[in-house]
């Protein structure tokens, strides 16, 4: 019997510059995903709406950026402009999908939102932070976005420093679904609360391409030699850490085993695992 001890992952310290880069990276990837989505399912009336540019209105929530400005004024003692430029702005980008029924006015049906969160106060004060975003912070952002009862919201919440585990408890509401996005060990990952209403909307917050995921798994395996040596580098282990589909992880495993003669893919039992061999 193998003793399973997993070391608690040390929270990664993120500086302003990295946080800003991650935030803009998230918004870029999110926007690209929305742009590539032709239609969106509305769980409220069980219909699929055309999400093309004709029916789409883009809005940004300025309140959150204003909050960052106010905090800088309050906490930073000098170089305020410089600090503001370096800081992530906690931006929120909303894609509103409007639809007009016959003989009725255009109505807002679905909102696809991307919102970024950072530990702003710590980033202003010390220039970096490893504090993960909490369920409370997420709740505030969701309340700000999902303001109308009659509209359904798909929200992708991205934290530049990662999420506290308790955040996974507040991802589902009557008129919204939240996907938690972050960057873990250099890889974009997303956690979706299990809910049938997601349907194809999951793709909106899946921020990495399959090639990127394969690369991310490869890099992950490289960093976890100890796990490999203990015969514990299974598909499930990678799934728990990165949240990528098993098919993608398996593909990456196959690539690694084909390239590295000291690694073999053990397929005699599920979950498949990579093991060390010396030939």
């Amino acid at each position, binding site marked *: 019997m*193998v*003793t399973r*001890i997993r*070391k608690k992952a040390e929270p990664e310290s993120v500086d302003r510059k990295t946080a800003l880069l991650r935030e803009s990276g998230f918004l870029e990837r999110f926007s690209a995903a929305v742009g590539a989505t032709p239609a969106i399912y509305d769980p409220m009336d069980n219909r699929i709406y055309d999400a093309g540019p004709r029916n789409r209105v883009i809005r940004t929530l300025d309140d959150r950026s204003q909050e960052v400005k106010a905090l800088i004024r309050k906490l930073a003692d000098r170089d305020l402009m410089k600090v503001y430029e370096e800081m992530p702005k906690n931006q929120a980008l909303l894609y509103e999908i409007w639809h007009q029924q016959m003989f009725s006015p255009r109505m807002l049906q679905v909102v696809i939102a991307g919102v970024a969160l950072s530990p702003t106060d710590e980033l202003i004060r010390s220039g970096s932070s490893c504090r993960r975003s909490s369920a409370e912070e997420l709740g505030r952002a969701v309340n700000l976005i999902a303001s109308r009862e009659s509209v359904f919201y798909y929200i992708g919440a991205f934290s530049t420093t990662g999420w506290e585990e308790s955040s996974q408890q507040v991802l589902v509401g009557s008129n919204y679904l939240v996907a938690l996005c972050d960057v873990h060990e250099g890889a974009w990952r997303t956690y979706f609360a299990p809910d049938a209403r997601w349907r194809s909307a999951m793709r909106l917050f899946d921020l990495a391409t399959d090639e990127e995921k394969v690369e991310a798994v490869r890099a992950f395996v490289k960093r976890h*030699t*100890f796990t490999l*040596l*203990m015969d514990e580098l299974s598909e499930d282990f990678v799934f728990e850490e990165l949240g990528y589909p098993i098919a993608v992880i398996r593909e990456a495993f196959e690539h690694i085993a084909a390239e590295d003669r*000291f690694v073999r893919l053990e397929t005699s039992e599920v979950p498949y695992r990579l093991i*060390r061999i*010396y*030939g």
Partner: protein
Amino acid sequence: MGNSMLDKIKKMFGIKDVPDEVLPLYRGAKSKQEALILLKEALRRDESRRRRSMQDLEVLTQMEEELLEEGKQEMTEGRRLMLARRIKEIRSKGQALNNRIETIYNRRIQVFTQHIESLQTTVELEAEPIPEPKAMEDMAIQARKMVEDLEKSAELALGIRSNTEVDGIDDEEAEIMREMEKRSEETPKVETEPPKKEKPPERKEKETPKQEEPPEKDIIYEE
């Protein structure tokens, strides 16, 4: 084909049996050059395996160290026990890896290296072109000359040595030595070992000419 190569190798190295590590390599080779390539390739592979194993061993050692540190700080007995079990697993992995390095890679690498060196020398010698008869004759003459010179030098050296031996120790030197002995007797002895009795130099005896005994009178009378 493979066996004939193996026989050649045995004959060449003057050995009865070839180690198991290199046996398949010689069997698979068609020529000495090919055997050399196969040996070098096998050596490279094993060196790479050993390197990988050493790196892995380092990872295991580092993790063991970290867990030991963690165990030092850990307060709950349950968690400590878990850590101990984990460390046991790591050690067993490390032990297995260490054994592999010692009994497989180090041994094989040693055998491969020896065979590569021997085979390489043979292949290089065979590759040397045979000199012309005239050149060989010249070389033989030169060699003979060198031997003669060497013999002369040896004689000369022997001569020098015998001279010094004949000379032995002169009076002054003997005096100095007596002085030294006297000093050493005068100085208080620190050593606990009993002083060794020095033999009187033989040469000294040689030096003092023996007085020839006069011929016995009886004999003279007899004459």
